[in-house]
Every structure is written in C-alpha cells, then in structure tokens.
C-alpha cells in the first residue's frame, strides 16, 4: 500500500498528482476567509456529506504495474502465443512504429478540443489531413473529423439521409452486420423512423425511403453491387449510404465513383489497436451539397489577420453547443486522437503501402479460403458462391462452430466468429497480413483434425 502523510484535518494527503501542501491549503483557506474546507461545503446536505466509500487504499506505481500485468496475463492474445481469425468489425493489423511514436507526444494527447484555434493548430492541421485522407480513400468530396465508431457513424448517416430527404423510413440491406441496424435502432427509435430490410438482390424498393444503407464488403465479407443499388436508391428519391472497410479501399473501387451520397466506415483497421472494442473512430464522408446536415466536427482552412494559413473548426452552427436541441447530432467529444493515429498510419503506409496491405490481406484470405474449401465437410462462401470477397469469408462447418472453436482454443487458435444465428453452422473467418502462411496452415490442419472427428 502507498502511505500518505497525515496531519489531521480532512485534506492532508500529499499525492504526486496533487501538489498542494498543508501550508498551501492553509494560506488559500485564509485568503478565501474560512477556517477549513467544511466552510465551503455548506450547500451539501450535512446528512449526506463525507459518505464512507468502500474503496481500496491507493497503490504506488510499482504496485499498479504489477496489478495490470496480472490482469493482462489472464487474456489470450498474439502476445501470449495465440493466433486469431476473428474479424467482424475489428481487425488485427500491424501498427507501425511511427504511430506509437507520435502518440508519445503529450502536446497531442493532452490537448483539448480545438475551440481556441490559435492554441491548437497542431490538432487542427492533423484533423484537416485526416479529412483529406478519408476523402482520398473513399473518393468523396468532404469528410468530417471523426465519429465515435463505425456503427454510430452509419446510424448518424441514415438519420442525416432522413433529414435531407425529409423521409422517415430507412432501408438497410439484410447482408449488413447486425451491429449497424442495431445501433441505428438505438439512435432512431424515438425520432419516428422505421427501419426496412432490403435484400441485396432487390430490384424494387418502396418509393418513400430516405436511403438504402449498404455495407460493402458486407457482413459475410462479400462485395455488394454498390453501383446498381445506388442507382436503385436514386431512382426512388432515396440516398445511398455505404459502409465500407477502409483497408479494402486500398484495392477495391471507392464508393465515390458510384455517386454514393454518404460513406461511413470503422476506422480502426487503419493503425488502431483492437483493444477489446475501443476506442475506435467512425469515418464519415458525403457529397458537398449535404454538408450542412453532416454531424460531427469539421475543420476548415482559413487565414489569420496577417494572411497566414491556419485551420479552425467551422460550420459549428450544426453542432450541439450552438443549436442545442436542433443540432444535427448531440456528439461533442468524439475521437480526435484516434483520428491522429489513422492520419499517421495513412501517411506512413502512403500510396504504395495501402495497396500492398490490401493485396496481402486479399492473398492470404483467398489462400486460406481455398485450403479450407478443400477440407472434407467444409465449404466456403456458401451464401453467394462465385461472389467477390476481400479478407473475410464464411465457412460452412461440418458441425457447431462453437464446438469447433472450443477445440481450436486448446491448440491456442482463436477461430472465426460463430455466425450460426445467421447461417447454419457458419463461421466468419478473417485473415489479414498479420497471419503468416504457417499460421494459416496450422489453422487449416487443426480444422481438418477437428472436422474429421466432428
């Protein structure tokens, strides 16, 4: 246990995070004009003051470190010798040293939201670069400075489509990750919206939809026909909202090429640790015409009184601190530092790197799919045979994927996601550049052994 110096009174601890000494406090209380802290707490009902909190005593840093290492040691990950084939919205990618290095800079980490732009040109210029990267990847005209995560970005995009078209019914493709419509439901259930499920092969849709929300690659890893679905939406006065995988955009056509209206994505694959689910960053881009309905912060370029280039938050009248209950969203604090990680990552990979990365993921995933497809009792991509997939694919297993995964765990393999609730005995397998050929072969061999005894 850490020990604190005590000297009576109720504010006597000297902690590394609290510089005031007893003498400091004495002086300050004297200036304020009260004998003790209690003189300042008069408005707190006395019967509820100073409750007994059941909390442990504080730890010294060394003890804290020991505690955390023991917590970490209880978790299975690549650092404890496991290989994993989980994807489904969070992805294992190698994070370059440049990202971790820039994250050491406290000027980025401990800065506030850039409401005083003169004191925040670093954060603002990085945010402007981030917006640029998102536009370049997605082929869209404008992007914001980031949302909480992919699913909330998608939800906000559908609500934006509803505002733009003044229609309340929102179409979502049945092939999307259920996280997307689930989050949309949470955001829309009290705003009079209705969610309508559209199948990917639909040739007609209701003529009163605000949008068709499309995920591509979809939940099953397959590329959807964004061009056709966008045209279908537009022919019916609806917007096209497309949720993408940013690494796939290193290889596959950008949605901007298909006249898509709003693009969202989970930005985590671009240099952000999986970290048990967060923090991540939602990417959000749209056509310039819709910019006043776009939620989130937007950074713009301008000049100062001496004509020098600078950056500032702009179009703030969309946001809650000005428009309050009529704001485009209630979002305030978002994910600026994660946006920094994405920006450093994109700058590090660069034009060639993003292409190489996408290719590596594609190659390894297709190798794995082909090897697994050759196993007795297993088949791959049963949902749309002959479809195109990026780095995730569905495996139809000879038995329960959960049982197979339990056996895999004994071999220190974390198998793909059990999606038998959406496809019988289905397992969603993801392969990225972090899996070696040996890893894949080990996985395939294990499946073969387990499948044989299933």
């Amino acid at each position, binding site marked *: 246990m850490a020990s604190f110096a005590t000297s009576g009174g109720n504010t006597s601890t000297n902690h590394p995070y609290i510089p005031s000494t007893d003498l400091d406090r004495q002086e300050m209380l004297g200036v304020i004009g009260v004998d003790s802290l209690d003189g300042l707490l008069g408005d707190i009902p006395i019967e509820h003051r100073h409750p007994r909190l059941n909390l442990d005593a504080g730890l010294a840093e060394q003890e804290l470190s020991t505690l955390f290492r023991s917590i970490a040691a209880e978790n299975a990950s690549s650092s404890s010798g496991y290989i994993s084939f989980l994807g489904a919205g969070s992805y294992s990618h190698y994070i370059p040293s440049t990202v971790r290095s820039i994250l050491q800079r406290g000027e980025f980490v401990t800065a506030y939201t850039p409401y005083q732009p003169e004191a925040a040109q670093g954060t603002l210029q990085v945010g402007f670069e981030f917006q640029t990267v998102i536009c370049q990847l997605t082929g869209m005209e404008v992007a914001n400075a980031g949302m909480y995560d992919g699913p909330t970005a998608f939800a906000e995009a559908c609500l934006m489509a509803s505002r733009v078209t003044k229609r309340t019914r929102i179409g979502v493709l049945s092939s999307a990750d259920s996280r997307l419509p689930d989050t949309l439901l949470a955001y829309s259930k009290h705003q009079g919206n209705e969610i309508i499920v559209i199948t990917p092969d639909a040739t007609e849709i209701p003529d009163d939809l605000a949008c068709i929300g499309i995920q591509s690659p979809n939940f099953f890893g397959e590329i959807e026909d964004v061009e056709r679905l966008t045209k279908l939406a537009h022919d019916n006065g609806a917007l096209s909202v497309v949720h993408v995988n940013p690494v796939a955009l290193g290889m596959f056509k950008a949605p901007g090429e298909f006249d898509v209206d709003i693009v969202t994505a989970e930005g985590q694959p671009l240099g952000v640790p999986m970290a048990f689910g967060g923090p991540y960053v939602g990417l959000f881009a749209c056509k310039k015409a819709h910019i006043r309905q776009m939620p989130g912060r937007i950074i713009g370029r301008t000049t100062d009184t001496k004509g020098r280039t600078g950056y500032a938050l702009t179009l*703030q*009248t969309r946001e809650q601190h*000005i*428009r309050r209950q*009529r704001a485009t969203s209630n979002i305030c604090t978002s994910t600026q530092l994660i946006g920094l990680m994405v920006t450093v990552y994109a700058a590090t990979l660069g034009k060639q790197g993003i292409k190489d990365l996408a290719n590596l993921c594609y190659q390894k995933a297709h190798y794995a799919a082909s090897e697994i497809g050759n196993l007795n009792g297993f088949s791959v991509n049963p949902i749309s045979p002959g479809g195109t997939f990026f780095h995730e694919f569905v495996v139809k297993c000879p038995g329960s994927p959960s049982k197979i995964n339990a056996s895999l765990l004994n071999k220190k393999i974390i198998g793909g996601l059990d999606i038998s609730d959406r496809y019988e005995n289905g397992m969603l397998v993801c392969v990225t550049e972090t899996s070696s050929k040996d890893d894949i072969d080990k996985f395939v061999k294990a499946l073969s052994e387990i499948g044989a005894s299933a």
Partner: protein
Amino acid sequence: MYPEDLKYSKEHEWVRLNGNIAEVGVTVFAQESLGDVVFVDLPAEGTEIEQFSKFGEIESVKAVSDLFSPVGGKIVEVNSSATDSPEVVNEEPYGTGWLIKIELSDTAQLDTLMDAATYQATLE
C-alpha cells in the same frame, strides 16, 4: 440606422412596401448582434407563409437565429445574393441584403408593425 420609410417587427425584421409586394430583411441591430453572417437558409419561391411564422434561418459563425416573416402571403422572390454571398446582409441590410419578397395577402397587416421610432425605442 432605421430608415423611416420601413416598418419593423419585434423579431428585428423590416418591411418595404412596393405596391402589393413586401420586401423583407433583417435590421442593423439584428446583423450586428449576429456578427458576420455566414449562411442564410431561405424557402423556395411560391411558398405560402403566415404573418409572424418562421420562414428560414440565419447563421453567423457562433449563432443561429430563426427568421420570422413580418407579413403573410406568397413568396414571389428570394434573394440569391444573400444565399450566395451572405456578407451582403451585414454590409447592406436594407439594400442588397434583402431576403425575400412577399405578395401580401392582407395589407392591413402592416398596421400591426412598428414604425422606425417605435422600433428604435424597443432597442434601448
């Protein structure tokens, strides 16, 4: 500051009557309070509105205000200069910064508005 040939509403809009057409804009006080106007959201031509109802929004860098029509009728013209170059609202609020023109449904509504002196008195 407050031309005598105009009528004023308590929401800081002014009206200039030309025959049956009312030209509407915001007063010097309004644009000063807002600061630099950056965006004006105006309705489409042909829209019918009632007296004192909201017809649009005006935004500065740090504020948003609703625009309320001092008179009712049909909007026959919308000022594209105000939407393309919102700074005209600051520069000439009674001139090139006009916002909409309305074909009046009832000219008697003008009697419910204030004259320049009365409006100015409300600002003090």
